[in-house]
């Protein structure tokens, strides 16, 4: 099967993730949208791996997953810390870094 539908789907998911990051203000949902963007790029990687016939794309997708896992751990810890100090997970409230 031609890779173009997969790539178009990947582009769609990535754009939906982008819009989500721009629109939503709950920090956790913003994080989920970032995850969606990473997953969309993974789909493109896997598709290109199949198109070109070598496994480098799959290895790249694997590294993206590792980075995403690390990012989620630290990001959610930051959200927890912010929530603990200001009782809200909205990104609007955290507009000042210090107070």
């Amino acid at each position, binding site marked *: *099967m*031609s890779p*173009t539908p*997969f790539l*178009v*789907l990947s*582009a*769609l*998911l*990535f*754009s*939906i*993730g*982008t*819009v*989500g990051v*721009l*629109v*939503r*203000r*709950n920090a*956790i*949902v913003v*994080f*989920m*949208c970032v*995850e*969606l963007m990473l*997953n969309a790029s*993974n*789909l493109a990687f*896997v*598709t290109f*791996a*199949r*198109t*070109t*016939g*070598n*496994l480098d794309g*799959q*290895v790249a997708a*694997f*590294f993206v*997953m*590792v980075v*995403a*896992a*690390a990012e*989620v*751990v*630290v990001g*959610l*810890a930051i959200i*927890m810390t912010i*929530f603990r100090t200001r009782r*809200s*997970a*909205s990104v*609007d409230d955290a507009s000042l870094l210090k107070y």
Partner: protein
Amino acid sequence: MIIFWILAPLMVVCALGMVISRKAVHSALLLAVVMVSLAVLYAAQQAPFLFAVQIIVYTGAVLMLFLFVLMLVGVDASDSLVETLRGQRLVAILIGLVFVVLIVLGLAQTTVGTVVGLNNANLDGNVPGVAALLFSTYVFAFEVTSALLITAALGAMVLAHRERLTPKPSQRDVVRQRMRDYADRGLHPGPLPAPGTFARHNSVDTPALLPDGTPSQLSISRVMRSRGTVRDIAGDRSAIAEVEAETQAQTQALERSER
């Protein structure tokens, strides 16, 4: 490739729902659907290793972490719909549309050539093939990954750690505080009364009755009182009154017959 045409619309709909839904839990569940569908698409594209990793790491670990934090933060922390920047939402959606059009036009103008397929690369199996690449060409990146993971774990521990500012109260301190409260404010030093146990209800939302028949506020959790989910036992009290009246009538009849 029927599977693609089934899953692709589902994924797009779920992703849109994730962005639109106001409750964060719904977003997390819709994201789970998208991720499992992605795993199936990986399997359909000759990547069985990534299929397993996607399910284990994303739907297993990452989404559970998301749900865990959601429960910790409070499930009903839904977004307010008030825009802080005027027109921001509209502009964001416009930018997203422009982005889609741009990428799709770019994709349409490229030629991907013939699809080679991974039958040759997966000759010894997909996992050995990926491992051979990981531990030869990408071995340095792989080692750096370990440093990244350790840093992330340490960072999470440092961020989640809370310093104890006051010493932990011992049993002796607790007793002293209780006796002081009793001396100063007359608070009952013993444990709080248990919830009511009646023939019809004995759950924690049933208040115990005081000797004068009024429900005891202390026998109910403060959370339930503020939520307003305390069971109203006025109806039960009327039943009690009925039973009492009946017993009284019976005793009177007995007394009369004895005379």
